[in-house]
């Protein structure tokens, strides 16, 4: 490995096409996942610039070097155009997407400039940085392993760049890079465990990181949940301590919707006017931990009805669980819930909100409900009447309802009679409010799949659900799920049982074994992801401090963390260094003595080349410094005979000869006198 340390030549290592390909492999694989996230112009631009540089490397196209005026100005123009294009694409918004796409296209321009050693290093470090930017978008197991492979490729490029071409093959570069990655693993794990994790905005993601998040929101417009109905994305995962409740009882409560304009439903901010109402438990309390995917919303999900919040947030008056700040990253929290509770109190503000309907909306619905009110007026009878109405009039559960004509509630109840949970829930609440019964819509999730391997529940976006709650004089707030009247299977079997058959996998639909195998495979994958989320992504500052305390430190703070990180890394590197030195150190004393002899000569400017034999070295030395002939010849012959001959007598002669050998930089002038 003869790398020139001459500061003048080091900047002038010629960049060969092979170096270009290595550089491009690192950059391209680091950028590849971004190609799916950004508009085609961005990656087309990168590919075009890369193509230009590589064609230039083979002399097919001229490159925009400084001497080539026209092309050089074209390059400057391209850079400006890039800034402009990205500014327009992102509407001037500064954030994650704009930043990453700017970096990506500028990397393409920098690649075009790859001329000298310095450019190669700059591009290599940019490639490492591009790897980091991928974590703004995905932190899953496959992407982590993919990016590890990318880092290996980039490191392989560095190795290739620093070794003469004839000495190592491409495979050897990659193997060495992989070995270096493995050697770095202990330090990586230590840094992961001990590097201080500072919660707060410093480590938070940019503002636009959640533009693509799907999930529930604080409002509901009829027709919106269909999209969720078909999404397999995981919403959250739950691990129960002990037996879980039945599928039909697993209502996961999200935001409660009070206000409606006839079409959309919204949450209601009661401010501080409404205090929390006492909750009386009537059954057992289930304890569980919930791992919630980022929603960018403040509300949290919990099994209806949450009774033990701990310090995870606070409950609103309508039993919605609120987090201290929007959920921007995956969080894990423990809760206790009781299925049967008594919620008997209702404030004036809530009473008004639970009966409010937009004026002049839903005339037919109101007429129907008012007829029930006139006939008896008992709220319970109105509930029964409404459910009977839904059951007896040929209502159909479908995820693809026809578009409503006119008033959506009237249209659903009296014309189309086809819809899904939110149509049923909204219409039922309108019916109740028209009949004078306080009612509200509750959104959340229902059911969830049990993973046999890890023993936890997976609740996906397609499990999103909406139901109703009515306030009955003696029972208080009571859950009514009008969807169950029409599609009972929705609750006991989950949404898969009734979802559109077009979404099912046609190939394995009729093959029970294949179906089971498919299920087991997906369960295993979910289990892996769950553990990854829990132990790797979920390793928070709090858990880090807990670990430090567990290790025996009384006070766990940043200083302790930093100090233990420093000591651990030094310890690991030191141990590995000692191990390496031990395996390298010459065990043969002859070699040690001869190495000392060579060092002494190196000090006077006559180092031995690694491939130079002892006799050849001696000849060279004597040719330059005839005054050293006697000791050099003596030591060299002694060494060669002892090391390569079959005698070991007089090995100590070499040691003393080398000790006595003190070459001077300037040869003594013998003929001065």
């Amino acid at each position: 490995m003869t790398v020139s340390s001459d500061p003048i030549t080091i900047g002038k290592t010629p960049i060969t096409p092979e170096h270009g390909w290595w550089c491009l492999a690192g950059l391209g694989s680091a950028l590849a996942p971004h190609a799916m996230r950004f508009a085609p112009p961005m990656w087309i631009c990168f590919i075009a610039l890369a193509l230009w540089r590589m064609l230039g490397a083979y002399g097919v196209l001229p490159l925009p070097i400084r001497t080539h005026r026209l092309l050089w100005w074209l390059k400057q123009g391209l850079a400006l155009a890039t800034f402009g294009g990205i500014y327009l694409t992102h509407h001037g918004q500064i954030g994650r997407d704009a930043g990453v796409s700017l970096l990506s296209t500028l990397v393409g321009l920098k690649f075009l400039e790859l001329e000298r050693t310095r450019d190669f290093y700059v591009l290599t470090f940019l490639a490492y940085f591009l790897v980091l930017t991928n974590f703004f978008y995905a932190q899953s197991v496959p992407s982590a392993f993919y990016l590890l492979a990318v880092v290996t490729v980039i490191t392989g490029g560095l190795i290739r760049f620093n070794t003469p071409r004839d000495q190592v093959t491409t495979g050897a570069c990659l193997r060495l890079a992989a070995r270096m990655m493995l050697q770095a693993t202990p330090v990586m794990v230590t840094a992961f465990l001990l590097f201080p994790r500072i919660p707060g905005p410093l480590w938070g993601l940019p503002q636009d990181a959640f533009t693509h998040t799907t999930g529930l929101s604080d409002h509901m417009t009829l027709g919106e949940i269909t999209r969720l109905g078909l999404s397999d994305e995981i919403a959250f995962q739950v691990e129960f301590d002990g037996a879980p409740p039945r599928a039909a009882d697993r209502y996961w409560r999200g935001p409660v919707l009070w206000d409606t304009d006839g079409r959309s439903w919204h949450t209601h901010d009661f401010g501080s006017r409404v205090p929390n109402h006492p909750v009386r438990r009537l059954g057992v309390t289930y304890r569980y931990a919930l791992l919630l995917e980022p929603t960018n919303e403040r509300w949290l999900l919990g099994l209806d009805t949450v009774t033990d919040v701990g310090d995870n947030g606070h409950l609103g008056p309508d039993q919605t669980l609120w987090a201290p700040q929007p959920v921007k990253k995956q969080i894990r929290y423990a809760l206790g819930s009781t299925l049967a509770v008594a919620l008997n109190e209702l404030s004036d503000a809530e009473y008004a909100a639970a009966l409010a309907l937009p004026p002049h909306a839903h005339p037919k619905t109101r007429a129907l409900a008012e007829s029930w009110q006139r006939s008896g007026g008992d709220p319970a009878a109105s509930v029964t009447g409404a459910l009977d109405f839904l059951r007896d009039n040929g209502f159909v559960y479908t995820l693809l309802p026809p578009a409503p004509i006119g008033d959506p509630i009237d249209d659903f109840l009296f014309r189309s009679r086809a819809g899904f949970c939110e149509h049923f829930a909204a219409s039922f609440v309108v019916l109740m409010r028209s009949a004078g019964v306080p009612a509200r819509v509750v959104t959340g999730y229902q059911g969830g799949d049990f993973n046999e391997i890890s023993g936890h529940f997976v609740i996906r976006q397609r499990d999103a659900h909406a139901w109703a709650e009515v306030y009955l004089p003696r029972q208080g707030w009571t859950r009514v799920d009008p969807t169950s009247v029409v599609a009972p299977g929705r609750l006991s079997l989950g949404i898969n049982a009734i979802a559109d058959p077009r979404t099912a996998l046609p190939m394995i639909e009729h093959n029970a074994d294949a179906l089971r195998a498919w299920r087991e495979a997906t369960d295993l994958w979910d289990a892996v992801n769950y553990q990854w989320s829990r132990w790797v992504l979920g390793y928070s500052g709090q858990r880090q401090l807990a670990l430090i305390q567990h290790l025996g430190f009384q006070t766990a703070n940043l200083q302790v963390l930093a100090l233990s990180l420093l000591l651990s890394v030094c310890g690991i590197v030191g141990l590995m260094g000692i191990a390496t030195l031990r395996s390298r150190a010459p065990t043969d004393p002859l070699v040690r003595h001869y190495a000392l002899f060579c060092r002494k000569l190196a000090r006077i400017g006559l180092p031995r080349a690694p491939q130079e034999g002892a006799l050849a070295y001696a000849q060279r030395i004597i040719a330059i410094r005839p005054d050293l002939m006697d000791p050099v010849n003596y030591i060299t012959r002694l060494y060669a005979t002892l090391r390569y001959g079959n005698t070991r007598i007089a090995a100590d002669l070499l040691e003393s000869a080398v000790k006595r050998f003190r070459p001077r930089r300037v040869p003594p002038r013998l003929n001065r006198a």
Partner: protein
Amino acid sequence: MGMEPISSGAAQTVLSRLLEAAGQVILDKHEVIKLAVTCLIAGGHLLLEDVPGVGKTTLAQTLARLSGLDFQRLQFTSDMLPADILGASIYHRDTQAFALHRGPIFTQVLLADEINRATPRAQSALLEAMEERQVTLDGATHPLPQPFFVIATQNPLEQIGTYPLPESQLDRFLMRLSLDYPGPQAERELLQGRARREMLVSMNPILDAVAFGQLQATVDRVHVADPLIDYLQALLARSRISSDIRHGLSPRAGIALLRAARTWSLLAGRGHCLPEDLQAVLPSVIGHRLTPRDTALSSTELVARLIASVPIP
């Protein structure tokens, strides 16, 4: 035949006389003569690659004469048959039996001139005999004389109607050398002096078959220390992963290298083998066994790079 080894000092004395005498005939080619003698003593065969007229035949004759060995010259032609090399069984009417008519191969030093002119069939007959050191005719095996040393010459210039030896056959030669043109001073002497062939006749052999056997036995006594084996293995391993080389060196090449290096040590009068000895024989022993990936790269350059990339342990 006496196979008792002699001391390395005595061996050096004999060998330096041999080299000196050969140096009088072949001028200015000290290094090539040394390597050729090494090849001869190591018991390997030699491939000379050169243009005609630079003294290939003279070299072969000189070595044979000075070593006191029989010499035969065989000019290869395109119509040559294996029987022309090996000999044949001929029926004798008077004895009413087949008798072996020995071909020119039954000699101690065989100069196979322009081996690439013969067809592959004739070539492989010679090469097989070289490898086996015996000839099989009509089911009977006839051992070749001891020692048996083939110097094959090959014209490197591409010519019509030649069959260059395939790579697998090149492996049968311990060394490949080339004489190249003499220097101006040597050439002048050559032009003014006596004819080389005449000189040769007047020279006395320095070795005989017994001395030759003793020298070969002495080669086996040259000590090879573990560090040298380490270095040899590092060279072999390097050749197998180098991106310059298409196929790395075989174990057979490793054995050949060590044998040649030990003989070289003996020429220097040493009873042990040094890394320098390996480096000295390396170009001629492995030059013809390596194929560069980049055809523009000469084998000399290839070997130089190989040596430069392996530190001596």
